[in-house]
């Protein structure tokens, strides 16, 4: 390739092409003009969004479905500050993303120039790494380093701030592929002793549980997880993010664990004698109270990030490395005890405390989500927003394949679900994509209806409309004497008309008896996006629930009859 005749932006775009980038999700502006201009001649497809936050969540949805970094391009100042939420969302969930920001020319940095924002400083705690590029000749190296950092080890977002003179200046460098990141090491291979120490404890366990986290999906270890569960005959629980890493229809699956996890998953955690986390970071949605967590269990931990070992739980044995490689080395060392009595015990938990809901008294979100599950034969890619509908979707949409469940876990970002579905549908044009969103969160990024409509993406947007910020309302009902403050969504639009205003097909459900037929019709429509407005009962709560900061023993399985004490943990 001849690099000599190009400007910084053209070099940047050719690097993206060489790195296999198919799509850039972006929003234009003055400081990014050279880059948008370079994209004009490129084979890379530009998806123009309606807000920079939408671009980040689309890139995120693209990345979570493909495992490849999603690329975002925005302008300086407000364009750049609008990506911070999406960067945090990707950071908290270890999603690879490259965020390219236009910036004022280097000579104006620090001069309060028009649309100057110190996005290098602003984004630092929300990204895995970031760059402010000051020389055109550094552009290719920085791009290659950024992709390497974003994609490897524990993935994450990398932001690159690109002053306008850097992208419009002439490139006369001789980048030969050498990266200059001597401080960056990825521990793929565990030590042999570490793997042996896991095996020793696993071989003694009589009541083991596997806690599967997002790391298992990132390392594509789902086959190894299945082999391990079957070899150990051990029940499997997953975190919210790891849904699909182990088939939820498998007899050993206990579904999601934690704050709104199944009662049987939580009971298994309480009663097990060993729990092994495979790429989960024992976070506070699972482990509200580390002092009382799985009190009688040996704790084993597999993670590629050394800083996760001992951060919350002090493990009895651990291996630092890529989950897939660790499991491959671990499997031959296993000679497990007979666990059938334990599996029977867990099956009794399941029989005694099944996941259920009251079907009487108006249309229930759970029924609507279950109908979506049936209509899509459990085979769709499901994205969610954040709130009650997210937890119901986690409970009632069972995932049996990896990379088919996209939800903002660590950051809990409202507004994520719908744009993430756009990114997922772009990445997987032949799959069915369902966005399960709340009436609150959908309104944060619904401007992307244009984006979905223009590209005729056949996304099913399921708006679970309870006319409340339901999850917050639930907490106010249970812990604050029904003092509803700042949760009423009065003034919601007519979602059907709203969709139609964008030229999008829309359906409406408000009766239990119509759910299945409407869902069938909506799911048969594939010419473009369609919106299903489900008006569900206003006041319903997600159970089981473990109050924030409490231990799993304090799980509330169904509606309490007395007022509950305000939890101490982070809500």
């Amino acid at each position, binding site marked *: 390739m001849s690099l000599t005749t190009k400007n910084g932006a053209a070099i940047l775009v050719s690097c993206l092409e060489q790195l296999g980038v198919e799509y850039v999700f972006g929003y234009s502006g003055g400081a990014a003009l050279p880059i948008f201009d370079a994209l004009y001649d490129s084979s890379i497809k530009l998806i123009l969004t309606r807000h920079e936050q939408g671009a980040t969540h689309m890139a995120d949805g693209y990345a979570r479905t493909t495992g490849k970094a999603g690329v975002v391009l925005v302008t300086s100042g407000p364009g750049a500050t609008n990506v911070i939420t999406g960067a945090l969302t990707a950071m908290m969930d270890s999603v690879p993303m490259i965020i390219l920001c236009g910036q004022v020319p280097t000579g104006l940095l620090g001069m309060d120039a028009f649309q100057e924002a110190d996005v290098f*400083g602003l984004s630092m705690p929300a990204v895995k790494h*970031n760059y402010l590029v000051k020389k055109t000749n550094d552009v290719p190296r920085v791009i290659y380093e950024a992709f390497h950092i974003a994609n490897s080890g524990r993935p994450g977002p990398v932001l690159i701030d690109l002053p306008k003179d850097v992208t419009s200046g002439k490139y006369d460098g001789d980048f030969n592929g050498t990266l200059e990141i*001597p*401080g960056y090491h990825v521990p793929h291979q565990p030590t042999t002793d570490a793997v042996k120490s896991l095996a020793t404890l696993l071989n003694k366990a009589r009541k083991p549980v596997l806690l599967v986290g997002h790391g298992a999906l990132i390392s594509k270890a789902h086959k190894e997880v299945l082999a391990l569960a079957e070899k150990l005959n051990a029940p499997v629980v997953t975190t919210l993010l790891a849904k699909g890493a182990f088939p939820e229809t498998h007899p050993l699956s206990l579904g999601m664990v934690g704050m709104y996890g199944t009662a049987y998953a939580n009971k298994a955690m309480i009663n097990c004698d060993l729990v092994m986390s495979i790429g989960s970071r024992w976070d506070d949605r699972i482990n509200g109270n580390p002092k009382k967590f799985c009190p009688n269990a040996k704790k084993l931990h597999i993670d590629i990030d*050394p800083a996760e070992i001992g951060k919350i739980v002090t493990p009895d044995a651990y291996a630092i490395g890529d989950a897939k490689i660790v499991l491959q080395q671990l499997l031959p060392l296993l000679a497990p005890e007979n666990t059938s009595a334990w599996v029977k015990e867990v099956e009794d938990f399941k029989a005694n405390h099944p996941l259920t809901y009251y079907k009487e008294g108006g249309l229930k979100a759970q029924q609507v989500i279950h109908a979506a599950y049936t209509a899509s034969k459990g085979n769709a890619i499901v994205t969610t927003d954040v709130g009650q509908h997210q937890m119901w979707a986690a409970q009632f949409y069972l995932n049996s394949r990896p990379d088919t469940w996209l939800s903002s876990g660590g950051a809990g970002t409202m507004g994520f679900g719908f744009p993430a579905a756009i990114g997922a549908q772009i990445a997987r044009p032949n799959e069915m994509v369902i966005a399960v969103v709340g009436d609150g969160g959908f309104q944060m990024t619904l401007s992307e209806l244009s984006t979905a409509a223009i590209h005729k993406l056949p996304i099913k947007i399921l708006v679970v409309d309870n006319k409340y910020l339901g999850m917050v309302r639930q907490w106010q009902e249970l812990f604050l004497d029904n003092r509803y403050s700042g949760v009423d969504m009065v003034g919601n639009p007519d979602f059907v008309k709203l969709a139609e205003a964008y030229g999008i097909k829309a359906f409406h459900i408000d009766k239990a008896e119509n759910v299945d037929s409407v869902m069938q019709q909506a799911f048969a429509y594939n010419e473009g996006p369609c919106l299903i407005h489900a008006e569900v009962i206003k006041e319903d709560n997600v159970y089981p629930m473990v109050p924030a900061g409490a231990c799993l023993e304090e799980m509330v399985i169904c509606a309490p009859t007395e007022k509950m004490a305000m939890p101490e943990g982070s809500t």
Partner: protein
Amino acid sequence: MEHTKKLSIKFINKSGNIIRVALVLERRGYNIKSLNIYPLNDDSGYSEMFLELRGEDAKFDQIKKQLAKLIDIIEVKDAIRAEDVVPVVAYARV
């Protein structure tokens, strides 16, 4: 329990790296009592940061791991030599 700790951090002296270190410490409630930076005498082009810190003992290991995770940090270690945190030495080496 809180005690004073001494850290030595070898790093690539690009702009931003002092803020990155400070952010890791601030977030976990650590206070910087002194900070000295000087370039290494070898050809590496790296610099070394010496910090005297105060914060909860229990968080120290986690903090060292989070610092080591920063991309431009080459090495994090306990600074055992007393002179490591004396500014005069630092100036002398520059």
